[in-house]
């Protein structure tokens, strides 16, 4: 259990680093998918199978497909890779990396201090998740649904366009 946890978290960290350093956008996205898969395994081991599988279905299975879909439509060629190489100079990333390293050391220190009391892992059934979502947090679910509806309406509004009839046979079909 602990070994599986460490393996998948190491994979998650390495693949996330690869996402940042890859110059080709599709390769970066592929590493991001691997990172999501690894995080799903980590979440599963923390006792939340429902969230783990949602991570797979929604993030890895739907959102990332749309990202790759967009990449394919944009047909980014060699120029983007060159541009990315130009942007990813050591002088741009050394500063933030050093600062975040300090934060990481602090985080590790804090975690090592608090590890004396072992956190018990309790498995969460899908039923419990559903009962909490549709019980005390119902209003949040409803609000999220409203937000999504607004998004869909907006997308439908932007996406609509008047059909142009290019052939007399199609006129009837369009009306």
């Amino acid at each position, binding site marked *: 259990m602990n070994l599986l946890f460490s393996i998948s978290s190491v994979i998650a960290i390495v693949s996330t680093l690869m996402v940042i350093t890859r110059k080709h956008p599709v390769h970066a996205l592929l590493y991001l998918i691997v990172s999501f898969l690894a995080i799903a395994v980590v979440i599963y081991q923390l006792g939340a199978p429902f969230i783990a599988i949602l991570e797979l279905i929604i993030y*890895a*299975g739907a959102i990332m497909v749309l990202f790759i*879909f967009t990449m394919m439509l944009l047909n980014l060629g060699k120029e983007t890779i060159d541009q990315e190489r130009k942007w990813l100079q050591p002088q741009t990333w050394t500063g933030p990396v050093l600062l975040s390293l300090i934060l990481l050391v602090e985080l590790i220190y804090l975690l090592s201090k608090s590890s004396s009391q072992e956190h018990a892992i309790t498995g969460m059934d899908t039923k419990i998740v559903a009962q909490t979502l549709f019980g005390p947090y119902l209003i949040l679910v409803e609000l999220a649904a409203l937000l999504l509806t607004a998004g869909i309406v907006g997308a439908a509004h932007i996406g609509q366009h008047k059909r142009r009839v290019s052939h007399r046979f199609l006129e009837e079909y369009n009306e």
Partner: protein
Amino acid sequence: MNETLTYILTIVGELFSLLTLAALLIWVERRMLALWQDRLGPNRAGPFGLFIVVADTLKLFFKEDWIPPFSEKAVFVIAPAILVITVLLSFTIIPFAPGILITDFNIGILFFLAMSSLGVYSIVLGGWASNNKYSLLGALRGASQMISYEVFMGLSLMGVVMLSGSFSLRDIVEAQRNHWFILLQPVGFVIFFIAGIAETHRLPFDIPEAESELVAGFHSEYSSMKFGMFFIGEYLGITLISAMVTTLFLGGWLGPEFLPPICWFALKTFAFILFFILLRASLPRPRYDQLMGYGWKVLLPVTLLNLLVTGAVVLLLKN
């Protein structure tokens, strides 16, 4: 120790029988298509032309495995493997018979949905990495088709989940002892089956590879065993959807006593595989926008309505 051995035997046996079945389906499909279209079909090699399977496999293995120089090599190689891996992983949750089950996952149905949504990558990446216009068009169609039909696939299953009160496929089969869910969820059954055809991109929904307009769609550039992987993956996908329909709506291995449970499961699954082939023999391919419009304008409202009615009835019966 004994339990571990049983599991290993189950896994090896399942893998062997699935791959054999997928290869045999090449022959079954061509013979059945011929029968329904009033032709003879492959009938020369061996009894009933059965050795066409061996000949086809040998041919695929010995063809030149050509990776186009203009392709994205690593992605190109990995794409067909993703399809077979995701489909084979989905089979781990299917209860073939009371004892023959690899894992009784408490979120079995969700795992199946996750695997089928990851399967999209094989088409998208395969089409993109080929660096070919036909492949790219096929991949675009495949991605939008599979993402859209996944939605209805997931929603159509929720009626079954409500009725059985579990995501575990074993519990769902057990819940069908009195009556199969096809009687209580006919709408869910039809929509799941349609979505299943679209997910496996089989005819009539094979627009990602529509050969009359796109050469071979997303796998135009694939040859030899890499093409074979897509081929096998498609037949495994058909078997998977048939097995899922059997498990979810037709009572899985349940059936009258005179046949063992595994036989009932195999019979029902095989009937659905034949139905897949019959659809291919009889239906024309819709246009791309017709397919998407049909999905979002017809299937989605019907699925939501089905969900609403099922929920209301379940609540009423509980009270």
